[in-house]
């Protein structure tokens, strides 16, 4: 079965006052139908820009998609006309953003925002769209949908707004939903509600999901496959189990070690990653994790390591010393 989405060597740049930033610097990955793929990374790693680039939602200027292909359903999204692209956004690919208060229109009722979506992509009359809106709100677990449809975003709580966002994303029965930090702004118990809802709906409706997050716990609970990003590149990719139990990239390993765990008594001091993420305007030609990496050797300064197959089937890592990294994990276990 061909993948639903195939990103090939995608590159996005921003012109800033400080210089050219390669926010996404040649990323490639696939998403299968119905699969949940997580993209993890810290601020500035390019995880959001990478997702927005798929939908061609990069503001230009200052940003520009400079290369690569995004094959969705057999078409390269990069080659589509702006009109066709509008059909894809919200039609075949739904979106859920982090901040539901800023991504919903404050002066339109919830109902209008959902029916607008349905009318735009499906046509049909207002009554049909209205009926669909009621159905969608029920689907995302909002009680009393008829009354809620008349309300405005400010009358809803954060969790409720995110449910509305999910309803809008699902409105046109998309095959893929891109969720950019969908629960970061929410409290823990509401976060759990929203994530469980997204998981059960994507399973039931067979929708694939790309979830962008910095929370390693969410990834472990919900993702089938994981892409770890650092400084605009994917540094490691594989099944959730492989990434967590047998990391082959020093950044992945260090990241997992640096988080305190809820399910374990306090052991010793945390093992942080020293230093700070690199300045993206001043990346050299070597591996961008090198200054913080204790595995680094001279070779790492000369060229950026390519993403290559390692360990378990399907796992990829961009490190010249991935073998040594995995040996160390094995020894520790």
């Amino acid at each position: 079965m061909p993948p639903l989405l195939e990103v090939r060597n995608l590159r996005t740049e921003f012109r800033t006052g400080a210089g050219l930033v390669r926010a996404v610097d040649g990323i490639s990955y696939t998403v299968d139908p119905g699969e949940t793929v997580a993209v993890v990374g810290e601020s500035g790693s390019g995880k959001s820009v990478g997702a927005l680039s798929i939908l061609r939602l990069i503001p230009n200027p200052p940003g520009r998609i400079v290369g690569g292909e995004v094959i969705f359903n057999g078409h390269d999204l990069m080659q589509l006309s702006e009109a066709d692209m509008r059909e894809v956004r919200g039609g075949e690919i739904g979106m859920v953003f982090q901040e539901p208060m800023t991504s919903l229109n404050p002066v339109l009722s919830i109902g209008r925002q959902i029916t607008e979506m349905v009318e735009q992509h499906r046509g049909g009359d207002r009554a049909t769209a209205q009926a669909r809106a009621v159905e969608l709100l029920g689907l995302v677990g909002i009680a009393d949908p008829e009354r809620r449809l008349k309300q405005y975003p400010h009358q809803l709580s954060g969790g409720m707004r995110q449910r509305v966002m999910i309803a809008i994303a699902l409105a046109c029965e998309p095959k893929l939903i891109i969720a950019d930090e969908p629960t970061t702004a929410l409290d823990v118990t509401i976060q759990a509600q929203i994530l469980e809802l997204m998981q059960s709906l994507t399973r039931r409706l067979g929708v694939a999901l790309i979830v962008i997050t910095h929370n390693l716990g969410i990834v472990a609970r919900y993702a089938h496959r994981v892409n770890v990003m650092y400084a605009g590149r994917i540094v490691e990719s594989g099944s959730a189990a492989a990434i967590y139990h047998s990391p082959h990239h020093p950044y992945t390993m260090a990241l997992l070690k640096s988080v305190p765990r809820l399910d374990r008594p306090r052991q010793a001091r945390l093992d942080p990653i020293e230093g700070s993420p690199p300045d993206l305007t001043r990346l050299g030609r070597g591996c961008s994790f090198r200054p913080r990496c204790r595995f680094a050797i001279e070779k790492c300064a000369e060229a950026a390591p390519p993403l290559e197959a390692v360990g378990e089937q399907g796992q990829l890592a961009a490190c010249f010393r991935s073998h040594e990294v995995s040996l160390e994990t094995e020894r520790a276990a």
Partner: protein
Amino acid sequence: MTALDAGATPLVEVRGLKMHFPITEGIVARRKIGEVKAVDGVDLTIRRGETLGLVGESGCGKTTMGRCILRLEKPTEGAILYDGIDIAGLDRRSLVALRRRIQVIFQDPYSSLNPRQKVGSILSEPMKVHGIEPDATKRAERVRELLTTCGLNPNFADRYPHEMSGGQRQRVGIARALAVDPEFIVCDEAVSALDVSIQAQIINLLEDLREKFNLTYLFIAHDLSVVRHLCQRVAVMYLGHVVELAECDEVFDNPLHPYTKALLAAVPVPDPTVEADRSFQPLPGEVPSPINPPAGCVFHPRCPIAVAECQLAPPELRELRPGHWVACTQVN
């Protein structure tokens, strides 16, 4: 301070603390039309040298608790004994002396540092206010020393906040709190805004400083994993009340209050194998408004084990195990 009397006299003792914020209407004649019961009857002690974690979701009153103890708010009711003296009603003058002993580290290192002040000036200001190191040269020296203590290059004294990263700014915020040589620091979501790799650095720094300067922390946070790592005891708050209080590992390994249980189950663990074996039912509903909180136990509308009597009277905090306090009538 010896270990012996450390247990005897708590550094902070909060008794029956209430903080109600009025909601008013009208521009000329302001009428009170209601109140937000942010903190509604909390008893809490903080021992010398410990880190007490205060956890809960937004709106539970944890930040307001911290602000009351710092006396940034004047509590509506109740007492806050700091080292035996009730500070709840102190006037502005007497508070100045108190603030040399109590300091705060805020969440957002972007908005809590003055963008027009150089780091050196940010750090020397508290010393000027409290008359520490009146000599400018010595003050500059102490600024360099503080920066080094907090893991920054002493030359950062000449920088502006915008020239630094988030982690570096938070180190400046910590150095500022240390400038007056305090004994007690309220950390209000001090690591929440930071990226994972930087967060671990700051957590380690806070631990080192606690040991080096014999500090006591009130660590307010919503990230339970961080709290488990850093704290000795934990108080869980819900809608203005403390619902559970115990030694840290006891709260995490053996939670008794249904809210604490739900909260812990909701946090995903960074391990797919552990997660695959964990089944959980998310807590239904949302936190009610603190303007009109539910009668009786404030948690009863969402509680999986609530019975009719829970709606009648608010449950008292009871010591069910040694040192393990729970406000629920249905657990034993």
